[in-house]
């Protein structure tokens, strides 16, 4: 090994260690920031190490790419609001996949359009561009849905699943052909095109509430594409970082799918978009109890134990700061307030935690589902803000319900439930929520932010 190679390899080893330490630090919120700064340092080390690579003969394009990337990336890091985090994460999966895919294409092209590609390298390149290409379009579709450029409800048509599976099958067949004999440029580019279309057809039928699974899955695919790049260009730090990312996305998809009571194979094959069967109970003849902000304020002002259950509605209304303000008033009156976070509340893993942390809610008040579910029976008021399916008791009792079996927050056990909701429209899954018709449930209709502001105002008056 020449000194130069030693330097490069040492920088990659250092980067790998720092990445793992960085991820490890995320097991505790107090150490996490410092650890991720170490990981960023690792990235810098790896970049510096790469720049002395003997293959690099000119730096103008490199510098150009670094500058343009930094100019685009900096505002994406600094100015994107926390409420836009799901789409921000989705689009970043796309950028990662673009890089991996283009490296794969250039590698294939520069080796005589496949003529000088070995079989094993071809297998790596194949995985790289397959995962990469479907992640590019899949993430872009997810971004479009979350940014509401596209309809966020499932878009389906007849034979959709067969079409998707057919396309995927052809892509895999092309892949096998290529590994047998890599010198087939047409097959290689056709495979990429198919994977691009497949990415669209994978995400199109998926609705907003299923986004946490999709984003996690795309996270995993983007990581696997990076790892495959590492195999193709024989680079260990890429393999390690890609494996870490792949494992992380994989674990998150499992956690998310469990939290929605979907089987894991259901997630892997992406068949989780199917429209819910119309088997749910309808609520004919039942009446809801509407409550005025004044009455709700009185109940909250005298409550000792309040559990707040945030959902996507809170994110849409950007009401997290008002929630915090209300909680501060209740605490001033001597009550206690904690927050019950369902794993799939919102549009991505951990969505609610980030929003509430932004509003200065201390993280020890954010309780996971298993931790808080036993506490609802002691709660004077459970305040549900824009959550629906994750508090629907039908998941426990109604076998015909599409969400039957999904673990939910036991909000209905609280002495009084106040549900903030814009209207009586059913939630994403399109099913009625019998919680809203119970005797101990009161509905506070209106925009969550406006309602919360009124509550704060009323309690201050009192």
């Amino acid at each position, binding site marked *: 090994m020449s000194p130069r190679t030693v330097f490069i390899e040492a920088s990659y080893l250092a980067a790998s260690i720092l990445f793992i330490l960085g991820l490890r630090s995320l097991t505790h919120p107090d150490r996490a920031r410092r650890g991720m700064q170490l990981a960023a340092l690792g990235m810098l080390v790896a970049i510096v190490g790469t720049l002395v690579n003997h293959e690099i003969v000119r730096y103008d394009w490199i510098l150009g790419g670094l500058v343009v990337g930094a100019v685009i990336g900096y505002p*994406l890091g600094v100015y994107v609001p926390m409420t836009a985090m799901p789409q921000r994460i989705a689009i970043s999966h796309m950028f990662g996949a673009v*890089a991996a895919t283009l490296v794969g294409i250039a590698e294939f092209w520069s080796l005589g359009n496949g003529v000088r590609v070995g079989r094993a390298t071809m297998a790596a390149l194949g995985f790289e561009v397959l995962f990469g290409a479907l992640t590019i379009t899949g993430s872009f579709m997810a971004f479009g849905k979350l940014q509401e450029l596209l309809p966020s409800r499932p878009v389906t048509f007849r034979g959709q699943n067969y079409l998707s599976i057919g396309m995927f099958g052809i892509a895999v067949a092309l892949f096998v052909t290529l590994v047998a004999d890599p010198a087939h440029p047409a097959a290689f580019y056709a495979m990429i095109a198919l994977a691009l279309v497949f990415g669209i057809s994978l995400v199109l039928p998926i609705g907003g509430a299923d986004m946490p699974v999709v984003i996690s899955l795309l996270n995993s695919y983007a*990581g696997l594409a990076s790892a495959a790049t590492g195999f193709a260009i024989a680079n260990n730090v890429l393999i*390690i970082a890609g494996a870490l990312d792949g494992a992380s996305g994989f674990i998150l998809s499992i956690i998310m799918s469990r939290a929605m009571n979907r089987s894991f194979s259901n997630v892997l094959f992406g068949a989780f978009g199917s429209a819910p069967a119309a088997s749910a109970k309808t609520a004919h003849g039942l009446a809801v109890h509407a409550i005025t902000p004044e009455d709700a304020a009185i109940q909250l002002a005298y409550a000792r134990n309040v559990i707040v259950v945030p959902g996507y509605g809170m994110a849409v209304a950007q009401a997290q700061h008002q929630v915090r303000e209300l909680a501060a008033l209740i605490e001033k009156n001597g009550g206690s307030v904690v927050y019950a976070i369902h794993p799939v509340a919102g549009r991505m893993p951990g969505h609610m935690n980030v929003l509430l942390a932004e509003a200065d809610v201390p993280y020890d008040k954010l309780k996971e589902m298993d931790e808080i579910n036993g506490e609802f029976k002691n709660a004077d008021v459970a305040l549900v803000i824009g959550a629906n399916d994750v508090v629907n008791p039908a998941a426990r009792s109604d076998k015909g319900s599409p969400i039957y079996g999904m673990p939910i927050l036991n909000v209905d056990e609280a002495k009084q439930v106040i549900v903030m909701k814009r209207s009586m429209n059913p939630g994403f899954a399109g099913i009625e929520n019998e919680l809203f018709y119970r005797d101990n449930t009161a509905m506070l209709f209106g925009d969550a932010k406006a309602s919360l502001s009124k509550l704060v105002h009323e309690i201050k008056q009192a």
Partner: protein
Amino acid sequence: MQGVSLLELYVFVLAGFVGFFTITRVPSLLHTPLMSATNAISAISLVGSLVLAGADRGLPATVLGFVAVTSATINVVGGFIITDRMLKMFKRAGPAKGQQR
């Protein structure tokens, strides 16, 4: 360019295990920062893109390399900044209550 060696497969599998055991211990509180962190880390594919953009393999490869460098840099810069921004927000109630607002 050498082929894929068995050693690389070892690296991949072992790194996957390290990732699995580390990440299962990340609390759901930090799942969003985890996602942006792993995304920023996997932008290490920048390393491959840099070589591509700087090597002399013909204009198409260089241009693809340039676009790849740009995309990966977006994730490196934006990803680490936004992860830090999120992690900065997580505070505990604790005794330091008076200072946090």
